[in-house]
């Protein structure tokens, strides 16, 4: 987590985010499932996952995946970054023994009619040479020093 405060003027389209690498263990998978209150056995019981789901092991659940993407974004923006919208397309599962690598690129920078600064991003998660999740996100960041997206309410917040 950086302490820097990203502002809209410091970001430009095409900018790449630093990669984030996460080695996945069975504990990783179970921690995420329990933290998201997902009790389904394919996220903690290897026998069930293999015999009933036909997968090679337990696998990372969707809310855990979302929490990783949120962390990846706010590691970059700092705490002033406020997530407005996120879209996922899950293409493949992530298993213990995999190394997840998160990638991101700024697709656009804009200020809306309410004066809120937005960074639009393409994000993707790879394991080896395979993309397992594709994601688009819009995160509000301060337009300039002194601005704070978290204070926006009602019609001033248009995600």
């Amino acid at each position, binding site marked *: 987590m950086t302490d820097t405060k990203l502002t809209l003027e410091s970001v430009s389209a095409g900018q790449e985010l630093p990669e984030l690498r996460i080695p996945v263990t069975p504990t990783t998978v179970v921690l995420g499932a329990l933290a998201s209150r997902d009790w389904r056995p394919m996220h903690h019981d290897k026998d069930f996952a293999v015999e009933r789901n036909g997968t090679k092991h337990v696998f990372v659940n969707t809310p855990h995946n979302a929490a990783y993407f*949120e962390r990846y974004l706010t590691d970059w923006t700092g705490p002033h970054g406020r997530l407005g919208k996120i879209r996922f397309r899950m293409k493949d599962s992530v298993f213990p023994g995999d190394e997840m690598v998160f990638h991101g690129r700024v697709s656009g920078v804009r200020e809306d009619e309410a004066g809120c600064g937005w960074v639009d991003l393409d994000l993707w998660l790879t394991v080896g040479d395979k993309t397992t999740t594709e994601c688009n996100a819009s995160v509000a960041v301060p337009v300039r020093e002194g601005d704070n997206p978290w204070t926006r309410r009602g019609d001033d917040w248009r995600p």
Partner: protein
Amino acid sequence: MSEELPPIPDDVSAWIGEQRYETVGEFDVERGYVFSSCASVENGNPLYWDEKVAQDLAGGVIAPPSMISVWFRPHYWAPNRTEQAQPLQVHFDLKERLELPEAVMTDNTIVFREPVRMGDRLKTWQVLRSISEPKTTKLGTGRFWVIDVEYVNQKGESVGTESYTGFGYRRAAR
């Protein structure tokens, strides 16, 4: 193959646009789960760990936006509950009523509005937005549907909307 699917029953078509399964969360939004979620992904954002930062930036302690659905997942067990509660029940209803035994989620979009604060008791409901004509993909023949899940706080303010695209299908013959 597509003509093999039965037509959409009229009462299922009538679900489109209707609020279904209004549910109040089983517990107040609380910090223990926020810490568990942040720890599970090593999220060190001080907004969730440092009360002063949370007060200065957001007017108090809030939950990470991506936790929005966590507050509605039912307990694994509860007294007097005889059936396992299902999140996204409309999805399972559609599988059953459209006679499509398999289903996958292909797309999930979440829009975040008011921050979720500690002590909030959230309410949710599901709205079926659309059901497609029969489609054939590599998985089989079935129908796509879009379900919105709305979330509001105890003041009636929207805290977010999730939109799921599902594909219910019959497996392609091998």
